[in-house]
């Protein structure tokens, strides 16, 4: 369970339609550019430190997942299915009428608060990233660098 002072990170994003729309637009453009092998957003942390961040490889993994290449997607990032679910949730929050989406968001917020699900996923992501960095560092960096 999340303490009261900790904001659940996903539900407020889904509730704010303008923000969700901007995020869907930026992510859609980025994923489209990546799928066409064109230059797009680059991870500032990777460029700054040479160490991939926990989210590095997610875009390419998502593109591969959308193309049906599960093994390739998993090789780049195991969290791509969750990322895809988050994108779909964002798209639905923008497209569906408020009367349908608001109760769903309220339930999602309650679940986030009760179970700490998002915090657990973020913690899992950090652990996954640490494991790749510690045990597969050279291959990981090479994979992300492309």
């Amino acid at each position, binding site marked *: 369970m999340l303490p009261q*002072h*900790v*904001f*659940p*990170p996903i539900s407020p994003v889904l509730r*704010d339609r*303008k*923000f969700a729309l*901007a*995020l869907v637009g*930026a*992510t859609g453009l*980025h994923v489209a550019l990546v799928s066409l092998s*064109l*230059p*797009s*957003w*680059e*991870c*500032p*942390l990777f*460029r*700054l430190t*040479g160490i991939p*961040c*926990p*989210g590095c490889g*997610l875009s390419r993994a998502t593109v591969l997942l959308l193309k049906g290449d599960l093994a390739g997607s998993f090789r780049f990032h195991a969290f791509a299915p969750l990322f895809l679910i988050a994108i779909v949730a964002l798209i639905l929050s923008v497209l569906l009428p408020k009367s349908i989406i608001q109760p769903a968001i309220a339930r999602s917020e309650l679940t986030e608060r009760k179970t700490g699900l*998002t*915090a657990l996923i*973020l913690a899992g*992501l*950090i652990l996954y990233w640490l494991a790749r960095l510690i045990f597969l560092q050279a291959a990981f960096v090479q994979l992300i*660098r492309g």
Partner: protein
Amino acid sequence: MLAGGLIGIIALLVFLGCAISFIVVLIKLFQNEGLLKGILGIICGLYTFVWGWMNANRYGIKNVMMIWTLLLIISIILNFAFGVSMIPGYPRPAPVVP
């Protein structure tokens, strides 16, 4: 060769500007939205970027966002025109041997 070096230096400066802008907005994100959203901002730089624009007026970071966006566009154009091989630290393409 000299032109290539100059482009490399410009790319490096553009990148440093982007990185500094990212860190400034990330600090604002941590301060105002808490730990979880801050971590989300590290993992997904695009989230930080969009959050920065959505809250630019509220937190007084409009100038930072404008500079970041401009540098980002320059960075993408440079990347498109010259490829990542100009970026210091990135591996150069191996020569093609027939």
